[in-house]
């Protein structure tokens, strides 16, 4: 399996992702400059990561300009062809703006940037990044965003539920999902979703910030481990 991490102007979690995928998870990973207009040597079992940050300064609207970067045409084609695409934080915003995921991410209800540890509960094992997560456990994974309030119309939210596309919801340390544990006013406590074809993932929390013993938090590792295992299975098939 191979990972590609897209660097937009203003991306700032690209180094962290390259570090965790390469040094910590020991995976093959390459940086991809946003001006490139093809993704040669990437196959279906590989994954393109859109990292966190402030692409184009988040001016206009988070992710709204990055979707027009040359590389995004190739990322869309790669996703439509069944390859894994994973957007985290700003990457999630870009994926929504690019139409690869439904809905949008609005300014937090309290109008402020917020960076802190929160707890997440995986809602399904039926996705490549959640397949190995014990559904009853709460994972401690930090958020750091000003625009993380997931929003979609009622029909879209309903279809996300029906199609089992909600990957993560915010919860308490003990795993209780309730409005008081919602850090930004997001619809239905949603922290992450996937597309209908289950190969494009978007989430606001940062698993790459919770994957090393040195940082005293490894709750995020299981997402990477799940993905690597599923990719291997895809190759075997």
């Amino acid at each position, binding site marked *: 399996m191979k990972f590609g991490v897209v660097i937009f102007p203003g991306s700032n979690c690209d180094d962290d992702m390259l570090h965790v995928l390469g040094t910590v998870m020991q995976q093959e990973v390459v940086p991809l400059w946003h001006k490139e207009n093809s993704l040669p040597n990437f196959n279906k079992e590989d994954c393109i990561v859109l990292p966190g*940050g402030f692409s184009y300064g988040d001016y206009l609207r988070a992710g709204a300009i990055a979707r027009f970067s040359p590389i995004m045409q190739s990322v869309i084609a790669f996703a439509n062809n069944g390859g894994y695409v994973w957007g985290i934080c700003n990457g999630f915003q870009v994926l929504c703006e690019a139409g690869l995921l439904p809905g949008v991410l609005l300014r937090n209800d309290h109008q402020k940037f917020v*960076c802190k540890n929160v707890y997440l509960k995986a809602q399904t094992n039926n996705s490549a990044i959640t397949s190995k997560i014990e559904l009853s456990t709460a994972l401690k994974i930090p958020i750091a965003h000003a625009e993380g309030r997931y929003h979609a119309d009622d029909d879209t939210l309903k279809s996300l539920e029906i199609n089992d596309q909600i990957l993560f919801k915010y919860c308490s340390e003990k795993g209780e999902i309730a409005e008081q544990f919602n850090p930004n006013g997001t619809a239905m406590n949603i922290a992450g979703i996937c597309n209908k074809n289950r190969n494009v993932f978007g989430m606001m929390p940062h698993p790459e910030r919770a994957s090393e013993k040195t940082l005293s938090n490894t709750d995020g590792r299981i997402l990477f481990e799940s993905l690597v295992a599923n990719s291997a299975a895809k190759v075997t098939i």
Partner: protein
Amino acid sequence: MQVTEPKIDFSIAKNLGLNEEEFEKIKEILGRTPNFTELSIFSVMWSEHCSYKNSITYLKTLPRDGKRLLVEAGEENAGLVDIGGGLACAFKIESHNHPSAIEPYQGAATGVGGIHRDIFTMGARPIAALNSLRFGNIKEKHTKHLIKGVVKGIGDYGNCFGVPTVGGEVFFNDCYNQNILVNAMSVGIVKVGETVSAIADGPGNPVYIVGSATGKDGIHGATFASADLTEDSAEDLPAVQVGDPFQEKLLLEASLEAIKTGAIVGMQDMGAAGITCSTSEMSAKSGTGMKIDLDKVPTREEGMKPFEILLSESQERMLIVGVKGQGHLLQTVFDKWDLECELIGEVTDTGRLEFFHEGKKVADVPSQPLVLGGGAPVYEREFSRPTYFDKIEAFNINAINQPSDFIATAKKVFASPNLVSKRWVYEQYDSMVRTNTMTTNVPSDAAIVRVKGTEKALAVTTDCNPAYIYANPYIGTMIAVSEAARNIVCSGGEPVAITNCLNFGNPYNPEVYYQFVHAIKGMGEACRKFETPVTGGNVSFYNQSVLKESTKPVYPTPTIGMLGILENANNYMSLNFKNENDAIYMIGAAQNDIGSSEYLRTIHEVEHSNVPHFDLDVEYKLHETIHAIIKKNLVQSVHDISDGGLFSCLMECAMTSNLGFEISTDTNFRKDAYLFGESQSRVIVSVSASQEGALQVFLGENGMPHTKLGKVADTRAIIDGEDYGYIKDWKTVHDNTLHTHLEEA
């Protein structure tokens, strides 16, 4: 602003902040009367902000070398410390007080941007930021407005730029009602030998301006920073710069990439006094000159005057001296990042700065006399013992009655804005990006930042309790240095160097100058004791409130930013209690002292009292002891006693783990002094049963005073058998008080 060139006389020089003696000196240097552009150049370069004219004599008394220092203080944009393994750390703290007092959001944001540029202009990648903030009374509407603006400004800039804010401090006192202090610190990493200097070697080499276009913002900002803040200062709004963190992020990546091409001779960021400062400092350092064509400078609007282009403090710009014939290499990098890289002139051997505009030479001045250490004026001001010292000397602890209800007192002290959690502030900062912040999940007295690719970590902290400095500038500043070093030692690190941000009132006020001179003396002594040389920093004078009939300086506030090193990151020591029934010890001796404490200000409303008890030798011995017991693995947690005294310290140890404590005070001391006094050189440790014997032996053998206070308990605080209630209830107050003040009041 002038439209036509005015006839130059002293009245114009005075308007630009120059005195008569300085005006005469300029005429002497040039051998003629300067034109308006030239006069503007001298006025900014000789402003307090750029020239350090009223402080440099004393700054030179500070210890400025040490075995780890790779550059001497003031030699480069920031200090550079060898951290081993072929790596160096560049770090510096700087003020942005006056802009933030006028326009808190942009003022604070550009303060952050400016200090990061100082670090990456040397070729170092910033990996951590800290800030030290002083505000007025939190109940004032104006203060709330300033806090919200400053915090959002720091957050928006740093978060987008992608460097974590890992530590800092926030302090409230009425003396900052008009004149807040915003001090920002940046810490970066660079390979030894791959740094870039701010030099302009090699006549004939091309000079480039890169980054943002030049606009009219911040003109005479340096002069503005060197003047008293008045009620009319809001009219100076154009003197405040506007920040663009996205441009800065691009500039960072492009600059570091450009350095790798080998096509750069020297580089300097543009901060105060823009093109003027960067061209003069770079040429003065190399003994060269420059010819600059101002028509080539990309501007944001048509028709900018030469002096406007020269003095603009537009942000996110750099001046680069390139290697002749290799300009294409730079161009490729800046094209990649979609940034301007414009050839605007060349290095000459004349020692003069020659600026051209519309084909005409508009200024011609020698570079050397403009700069600090060259010909810029140097003054020593008069000083005299402040009269308020009489009130401090008159303070008598015996005149202060002990409270009858200690629980109620503890609740009131503990809820002081100075002691409660700054969560409302720091959650607006990205504290984790770059995935190096080790103290996110396990807190420590200093912020611990892992250095990727090595076993090492940096321990960083900013410290200064201005109330102590006010009470006694000399001892108070020794305490500031000691507390910074203590925080690093308690976190398991070794203190190595400091940067300072010296915030004082008007230097022409002899009482303010007294504070300054004595603070420097205390700082020098403490830094020599801990072998933590001063690598640089900045001086911010003129911090005062202008009232109808008088002026009132802020508390003298020499903020210390200290860098420490942990050879093995995983050996860092945390501050929180670990296990129920672990014994709690206080290392260091208690004192009958409540001087300058938060308790005394909050409960008894006493502003003038003695500086807390302090002895530099005792402090040093404490550090050696703590260093050894951490190394010998004799303790579970270490936390120093500082603001709020023993009670706050114990609460902080307990809250993180939601454990309680059960302790007894010592009847040989006043109970208020024991619980809330801030006498220095004391540390709280928790110890498991298996460690306790060895700890006692070690402390005994080393003659280190210590007291067994009690033990870690389940969920409550018990003092002298009295139940202070659940820790989680104290934590609720601790976590939410600032929020209540700022969002609900």
